[in-house]
Structures are given as C-alpha cells and as structure tokens.
C-alpha cells in the first residue's frame, strides 16, 4: 500500500466514525417501514407508452384507409379533363398551333409477319391463265 493510500485509509476511518455517530437508529427505521413504494417507473411508463403507440398506429391506419377510399371520386374529373386535353391539338407558347401529331402505327412490327412476295403476282399464275385460254 502506498503512502497516499494509507492517508486515504486514515481519512476514511475518520469518516466512518463520523457516519456511525450520525447513523439513524435501526429500530426506528424498522418501525417507520418503507417510506413509499419504490416501484420502478418503467412499470408505469412502458404500458402507457405501448398503449399510446398502438393508438397512434390505429389512427394512422384509419387515416390511410380514408384517403384510399376517397381517391377515385376525387381523381375522376381530373382524369377526364386530362384525357380531353390530350385529344385537343397542343398549342405552343406563342399562340401558333403546334404541328399535328404523327399518327402512330397500330402495328409497328407488322412488316415482320408479311411473307416476301405475297403481295406480288404468283409466278405460276400466268400458266394458269394460259391454260384457261
């Protein structure tokens, strides 16, 4: 033990004597009993917090449900207007009419299905014509 530690030990011995003189009487403490329940505060906070969280989630869910149910009625006129606007020719900013839209090909890859030469006269058709004469 170092010298410092020995000094501290002596100091603490004095403190211990002082505390012993001022210690409350054991029997008096027993008679008074527990001052008040030292129940953990978490026993109150945790249930209250979980109930509040559940209520918040429920309210949020109710709000979400209400929004989804009201969306089609509110959005319908807007959708119709946007469709009508699409039919009208678009205007450019200086008031001039925009060039008409190019009609879209309903079957852009249809040419891949056509058989080459199917639209021209078949090679044996003149023979058939000659025979018929």
């Amino acid at each position: 033990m170092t010298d410092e530690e020995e000094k501290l030990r002596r100091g603490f011995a004095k403190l211990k004597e002082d505390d012993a003189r001022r210690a409350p009487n054991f029997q008096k403490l027993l008679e008074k009993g527990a001052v008040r329940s030292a129940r953990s505060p978490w026993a109150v906070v945790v249930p209250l917090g979980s109930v509040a969280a559940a209520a918040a989630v429920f309210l949020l869910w109710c709000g979400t449900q209400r929004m989804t149910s009201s969306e089609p009625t509110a959005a319908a006129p807007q959708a119709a207007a946007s469709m009508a606007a699409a039919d009208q020719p678009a205007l450019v900013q200086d008031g001039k009419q925009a060039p008409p839209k190019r009609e879209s090909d309903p079957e852009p890859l249809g040419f891949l299905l056509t058989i080459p030469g199917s639209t021209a006269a078949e090679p044996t058709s003149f023979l058939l014509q000659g025979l018929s004469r």
Partner: protein
Amino acid sequence: MEREQLERELSQLHESSYGWALACCARDRDEASDVLKDVYFKMLSGRVRWDGRSTLKTFVFGVVRLTAMERRRWRFFRGRVVTGAEPDDVPAPSAPLVDRQTAEALARALAKLSERQREVLHLVFYEGLSIAEASVVMKVSLGTARVHYERGKAEMFVMLQKEGVTL
C-alpha cells in the same frame, strides 16, 4: 432464515449498510435513511430473499445499491433532482473538531466524484475490501474497477489539496 434472526443480522450490519447507502446516494443523509428503510422493509417482508449464494453483507449491499437506483429513477421522472448533499449542519456528538473537519472535507470531496469512483473508493477504503471484491459488489470488471479506483483516488487528492486538508 427466520425474521428475528434476519433482523439481528441486519442490525449488526446497520452501520456498514448506512455508510454504503450514503455512498450510493451521493452522501445525502436523508435519502440514505429512506433507502435503508425501503431495504429493511423489502427484506423483512420477504419481497427480496437472501438465497445464501453470497454473504449477507454482499447481498444487502446489492439491495441497497438497486434501491438507491430505483429511487433515483423515480426522482428523475418526478422532476426532483437531489444533488450531492452538503454535510449536516448539526455536528456529530463527541467528535474531536479536527477529525470532524477532515471527515466533512472527505465527504464533500466524495460527493463530487462520479458514482462509480465514489463506490469503489468507499468499498476499498471504508469497508476494507480489495478492488476485486469491490468489482463484484459493483457488478463491473476488475479492470473497470481499477480504472475508477485510480482516477477517483487522484481526483480525491486534488480536491483535498484545494481545500487545504491534510489527512
């Protein structure tokens, strides 16, 4: 253990328990008394039972420490903060003046230390435990207890020197 026997054992440990309660309550004497009341009530009513795995003293010290923590939490939730207590104005009876002044200076310095430092210094110098035994009571590793011990000791000397107290 029968109630009467337990009461006798607690009575023998009373002064040490009070000293430990003071260390756990930042040297607040009223709070330490209330903590001890709760501890005795818990033990004698059977709410906490000593199973004999450790010594009764270690067990009582553990209950004191936990009870002091519970009460601190309650105070936190109620918004009442108890700072480190100043020593009582009423002098202890039949104490030499120099010893009393030293004890009060030491108590003031202890109240300013961190909780862990105060606990380890109390257990080592007040109760005469080794640092290893103190670490068991404090439920920390031996290395952690050593660090708190060294730092607490150094801070203690600085504070006592500032006050001009020689031990």
